[in-house]
């Protein structure tokens, strides 16, 4: 697959202008990216196993999932570094599946930054303009502008090796946005930064995206990062998409057991426990902060479910306290309490009998992961 990069038989240094043709200045109706029936196999491994996705023009879209879930492969297919075993990729309505990376109107921010070590910062940033024969004065102007956008004005003459990780990340961003792509692909760009810098860059990236109006496709395994930054999130698991939703929907109404477990912490109730506590069988989730902890025997309002149990473990976390409560049926629930005035701290003692209750509205019925995809497609295309 490496060979594709340097040995394409059709040598073309100029991007076809047809990428832009037809699309008006604000073509918001056509999805920026459209993936249809995407499959990608590496030998016997199905890295991407049937992905359909539409990413809207101008949105901050995250692809979230554990490592090996296929999210990076999907990103690389959009960029053109990998070709799908089956399925089509459309950018702004144009099928680009068979186009090499240099003929697609997208730019990528790489996880390892991929800065050219033999060029200065300015040399790196102007690379895209240079290969498209933009004249020197224009190049210089836009390099200054791009470096200003990432708050690195005046760093043009330095070498990438002289910069810190965060600065290299910014150069890599400037190098991508200077080309004014329709879509910017970011492959875990904050993965190598420390926590404080990460938080700063998260906010900056979000602001930058809003100002530039470029569609961002952001790959991450960090659910908090995805919730913080995104307009919409696709949760990947095992080469498939579990759910596509806004951060609020994803957290409040996860569709599957996988999403409920991967995004935030969830209490799962199923089978016998669900029947006894909730009065109906099924698979349910309730978030720890939705559960209230009371004296046993406290009257329960209509519209709330309740169960009695014993506090098994207490973890004090500063602003909140977590309690693990064992219900009679062998089920344990995690409860999160704000450490506010009105909370009865006497209840948060190990061995204490308590009553838990939560609004029925916050009880989410889940689909067990795997059941949503009935069996593997036997017509799966094998590739070498």
């Amino acid at each position, binding site marked *: 697959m*490496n*060979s594709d*990069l*340097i*040995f*394409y038989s059709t*040598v*073309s*240094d*100029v*991007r076809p202008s047809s990428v832009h043709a037809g699309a008006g200045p604000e073509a918001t109706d056509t999805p920026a990216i459209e993936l249809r029936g995407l499959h990608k196999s590496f030998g016997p491994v199905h890295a991407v196993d049937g992905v359909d996705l539409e990413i809207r023009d101008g949105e901050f879209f995250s692809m979230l999932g554990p490592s090996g879930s296929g999210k990076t492969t999907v990103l690389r297919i959009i*960029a*053109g*570094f990998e070709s799908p075993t089956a399925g089509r990729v459309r950018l702004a309505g144009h099928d680009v599946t068979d186009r*090499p*990376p*240099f003929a697609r109107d*997208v*730019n*990528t921010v*790489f996880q*390892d930054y*991929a*800065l*050219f*070590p*033999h060029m200065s910062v300015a040399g790196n940033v102007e*690379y*895209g303009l*240079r*290969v*498209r024969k933009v004249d020197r004065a224009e190049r210089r102007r836009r390099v200054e502008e791009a470096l200003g956008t990432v708050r690195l004005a005046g760093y043009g003459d330095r070498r990438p090796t002289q910069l810190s990780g965060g600065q290299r990340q910014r150069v890599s961003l400037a*190098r*991508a946005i200077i*080309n004014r792509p329709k879509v910017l692909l970011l492959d875990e760009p904050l993965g190598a930064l420390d926590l404080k810098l990460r938080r700063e860059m998260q906010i900056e990236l979000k602001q930058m995206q809003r100002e530039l109006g470029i569609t961002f496709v952001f790959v991450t395994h960090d659910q908090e990062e995805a919730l913080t930054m995104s307009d919409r999130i696709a949760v990947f698991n095992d080469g498939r998409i579990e759910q596509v939703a806004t951060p609020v929907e994803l957290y409040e109404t996860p569709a599957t057991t996988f999403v409920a477990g991967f995004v935030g912490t969830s209490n799962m109730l199923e089978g016998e426990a669900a029947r006894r506590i909730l009065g109906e069988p099924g698979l349910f989730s309730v978030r720890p902060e939705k559960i209230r902890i009371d004296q046993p025997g406290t009257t329960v309002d209509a519209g709330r479910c309740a169960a009695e149990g014993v506090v098994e473990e207490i973890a004090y976390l500063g602003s909140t306290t977590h309690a693990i409560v064992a219900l009679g049926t062998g089920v344990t629930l995690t409860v999160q309490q704000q450490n506010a005035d009105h909370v009865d701290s006497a209840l948060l003692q190990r061995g204490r009998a308590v009553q838990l209750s939560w609004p029925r509205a916050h009880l989410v019925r889940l689909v067990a992961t795997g059941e949503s995809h009935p069996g593997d497609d036997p017509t799966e295309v094998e590739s070498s």
Partner: protein
Amino acid sequence: MSVAAALHRRPRLRLGLLLAPPMLWLGVAYLAALAALLVTAFWTANSFTGEVERTWSLENFRELFGIGVYKTVTLRTIGIAALVTVVDAAIAFPIALYMAKVASPRAQRLLVVAVLMPLWASYLVKAYAWRGMLAEGGLIDWIGKPFHASSPGFGVTATILTLAYLWLPYMILPVYAGLERLPTSLLEASSDLGAGPATTLRRVVVPMAMPAVVAGAIFTFSLSLGDYIAVTIVGGANQMLGTVVYANVGAAGNLPFAAAVAMVPVVIMLLFLAAVRRTGALESL
């Protein structure tokens, strides 16, 4: 107390004992021999008896720089070494690029073995093989016949071809190692930023592989400078510095003059190394 325990508390002594034999070997066999060569160059040989007279003189160097034929031989040697290097770089680069970035891991291993294989055969056999190929009515003549081309015959061209063949592995291996270290993400980044394969090659691959090419050039250039066998076998009447040294050691029995001639490639190599030092090639040897 055991010896091992005593040594355990004296790491410097331990290191000294460990390194003494190889350092001694390096010092005596390598540097001392070179120093002896340098010293001999300032002595003279009695032209009647052929015996070395240990009196200091610059006579050998005066002769070396004074007589036109030595200048011609020196320039010819440098020219041949430079062309061999260029030919090797031109052949090695695509092969190394294929090995490092295209071939499957299995093919990669096979190719490394294939590149190394000629090094296991005798130098003389390979040189004579080329003599056979270049000879009148040889393989090259036979292949060239339909195209009305003929073998270049024995001479400078034949010498360059043969040396380029002999030293090719020494160019391929460093360039391959250099390209192997080139992160694939840089090639992807270049393509992502709109550069076609040719532009990526010119702006990213070649500049980044340059130190490795220079590292290979150090081998091909220095090996060519000192060669005397290939030129004897396929070079026709042409002489290189190596053949002059050989003739003076053997037939003429003028060891001091041979030593003076032998200093020439050493000096040229030192100049060459000084010139390429700044490319960072010495770090990628």
